[in-house]
C-alpha cells in the first residue's frame, strides 16, 4: 500500500538557520500520528513542506505517489488538508457554510456534490446550527472547528492539524477527537501537531518527536508516555494519567483514562487504594 505521507532525508533552513535535519518518516493510510516537540523544534515547518508551501533544501516529501516539491499547493489540496495553528483567524467568507464550501468549489467539485460534502463536514463537527452565522460572530474556538470543517470538506487522504485543541473546552475537544477517529477509520491518515500530550495519548496511536529539527522518537505514544526521563529531556510534560500510574505503581502502567479506570476501581475494591476523602485538596 502506498503510504499517505513519506518524508525521505528531508532538510530545510530559513535563511542560514537549519530547521529540519535529515527527517525521514512514513505515515500509512488510517494512521493517527502525533507530531510533538518543544517550541521551535520544526513541527510547523514540516506541515508547511507537506502542504507545498515551502520547498525542501534536500530530500523529498511524498503525499501518496506525488512528490510535494513538484506540485503547487492548490494541486496538493486534492490530497492534503491542513488546518493551521491560528485557523480561527483565517476564515474570510460571510457565513460558516460559504467558508467551508470554498475549498471543494475551488477544487472544481460540482456544486451539488460540494453542498453534500459541506453539510456532512458541518454535521461531523455539530456545526449545523451555526452554518449561517458570520464566522467572526463566533468565539475563536468555534471558528477553529469551522476551519477544520473546511478541511474535512476537501475529502483529504492526509489530514494535518496544527494545535487543534488550543482553547477548546471538553465538549469541543470531544468533537475533534471523534472526527480524528472517524476519518482515520475511513482510511484518512491524520497527523496532529500538538503540545497537548494528554490529548494526544487519548486519541492518537503513534508519536513522532522532533527535537532540534531531527526525529528523536518514532513509536507508540503509550511507550513514550511511560518514559518520564525521556519526556523531560524533550521538554514535554508527562501526561497526568501516566504520572498517576507511575506514582501509584498501577499494574500495567495505563496511560489512558479508560484503561486506568478499571484498574483503579479494582485497586479500590481490594483495599489497595483507600477511599479518597475531602481532605485531599491542593498542596
Amino acid at each position, binding site marked *: 500500500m502506498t503510504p499517505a505521507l513519506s518524508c525521505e532525508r528531508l532538510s530545510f533552513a530559513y535563511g542560514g538557520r537549519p530547521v529540519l535535519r535529515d527527517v525521514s518518516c512514513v505515515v500509512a493510510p488510517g494512521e493517527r500520528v502525533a507530531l510533538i516537540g518543544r517550541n521551535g523544534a520544526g513541527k510547523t515547518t514540516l506541515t508547511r513542506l507537506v502542504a507545498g508551501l515551502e520547498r525542501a533544501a534536500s530530500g523529498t516529501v511524498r503525499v501518496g505517489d506525488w512528490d510535494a516539491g513538484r506540485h503547487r499547493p492548490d494541486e496538493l489540496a486534492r490530497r492534503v488538508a491542513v488546518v493551521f495553528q491560528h485557523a480561527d483567524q483565517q476564515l474570510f467568507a460571510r457565513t460558516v457554510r460559504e467558508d467551508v464550501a470554498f475549498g471543494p468549489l475551488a477544487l472544481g467539485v460540482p456544486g451539488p456534490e460540494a453542498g453534500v460534502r459541506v453539510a456532512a463536514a458541518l454535521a461531523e463537527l455539530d456545526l449545523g446550527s451555526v452554518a449561517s452565522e458570520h464566522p467572526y460572530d463566533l468565539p475563536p474556538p468555534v471558528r477553529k472547528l469551522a476551519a477544520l470543517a473546511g478541511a474535512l470538506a476537501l475529502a483529504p487522504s492526509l489530514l494535518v492539524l496544527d494545535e487543534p485543541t488550543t482553547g477548546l473546552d471538553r465538549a469541543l475537544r470531544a468533537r475533534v477527537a471523534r472526527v480524528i477517529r472517524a476519518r482515520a477509520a475511513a482510511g484518512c491518515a491524520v497527523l496532529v501537531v500538538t503540545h497537548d500530550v494528554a490529548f494526544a495519548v487519548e486519541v492518537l496511536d503513534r508519536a513522532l518527536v522532533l527535537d532540534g529539527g531531527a526525529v528523536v522518537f518514532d513509536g507508540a505514544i503509550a511507550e513514550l508516555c511511560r518514559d518520564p526521563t525521556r519526556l523531560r529531556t524533550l*521538554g514535554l510534560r508527562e501526561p497526568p494519567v501516566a504520572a498517576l500510574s507511575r506514582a*501509584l505503581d498501577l499494574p500495567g502502567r495505563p496511560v489512558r483514562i479508560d484503561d486506568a479506570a478499571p484498574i483503579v476501581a479494582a485497586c479500590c475494591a481490594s483495599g489497595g487504594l483507600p477511599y479518597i476523602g475531602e481532605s485531599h485538596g*491542593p498542596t
Partner: protein
Amino acid sequence: MTRLSLERVSFWYPASDRPALCDVSLRVGRGEIVALVGNVGAGCSTLLCVAAGLAPRVTGGRLDGRVECAGPETAGGGRVLLLPAPWTQLSGMGVTVRDEVAFGPANLGWPLERIRVAGERAMARAGVADLADRDPLTLSGGELQRVMLAGVLTMEPALLLLDEPTAELDGDGAAALWAVAREEAGRGAAVLVATSDLDAVPDLASRVVWLADGAVRADGAPAAVFADDAIWREGPGGPAVADVWRAAGLAPPWPVSVTAAARAR
C-alpha cells in the same frame, strides 16, 4: 486584603441583549491564585476584561454593579491583563524585545533607570533575556507569549489577570509560566487566571470559579468544585486524575491531582 472585588456585576456588549456577565460577585485577595474555568463562551475572557477595566471603557457596552481594584500605589501596583493571542497585545512601538517590555512602565512614567532594571529582571524571569535584541515581529508564538509575560511583569502589578497564558507554550514553557504565577502571588499580587489546562489547576490555585452562561456556578476549593458531577456533564470537566476515578464509577470527591492521589495511598 482584597485586591479585586466585583459586586453584582452584569455586562452587555454593544448591540447585544444577552448579558455576557450575569450578576457576578467575586473577590480575589492579596497573594491568592484563583482559576477561572468554563465552557467556550461562558464569559471568562469578558470577566477578565471587566476586571482589567477594559470593558466597557475600550469595548463599549454597558456595565451594572461595582468593580473595585485596590493596590499599593508605590510599587507599580496596577492591574494588568495578559491576552491569549500574544500578537494582539504587541504595542507595535518596540523594534526590540527590550523596548517592547519597556512600553508599559514607560507609559506609567517611570524613570529610565527603574524601567531598565525592572525590564532586565522581568525578561530573565520570563526566560526571554536571550531574545532582548530581537525584533518582536520575528518571534514564534511561544516566544512572543513569554515576551508579553515579561511586559506585564515589568509593571509589578498588584493584580495579574491571565487569559489562557499557556496557549502558545510547550510543556517546559507552561511549567515555567505557572511557576512565575506562583512567585507573583508569593510577593503579594492577586492572580486571576482563565485556563483550559485543568490538570494544572489543583496544584496552582487555591480556589476555582466555574462560570456558565456569564454567571458563577461554583466558587470553592478545586477538590470541591471538581467533585460536582455537573461540571463534568455541563461544564469544562476537570483534571484527568479525577476523570479516572469518575470513569471507574467511584463516588466523589475524587483526587484532583497526582499529588492528592499519591498522598491518599
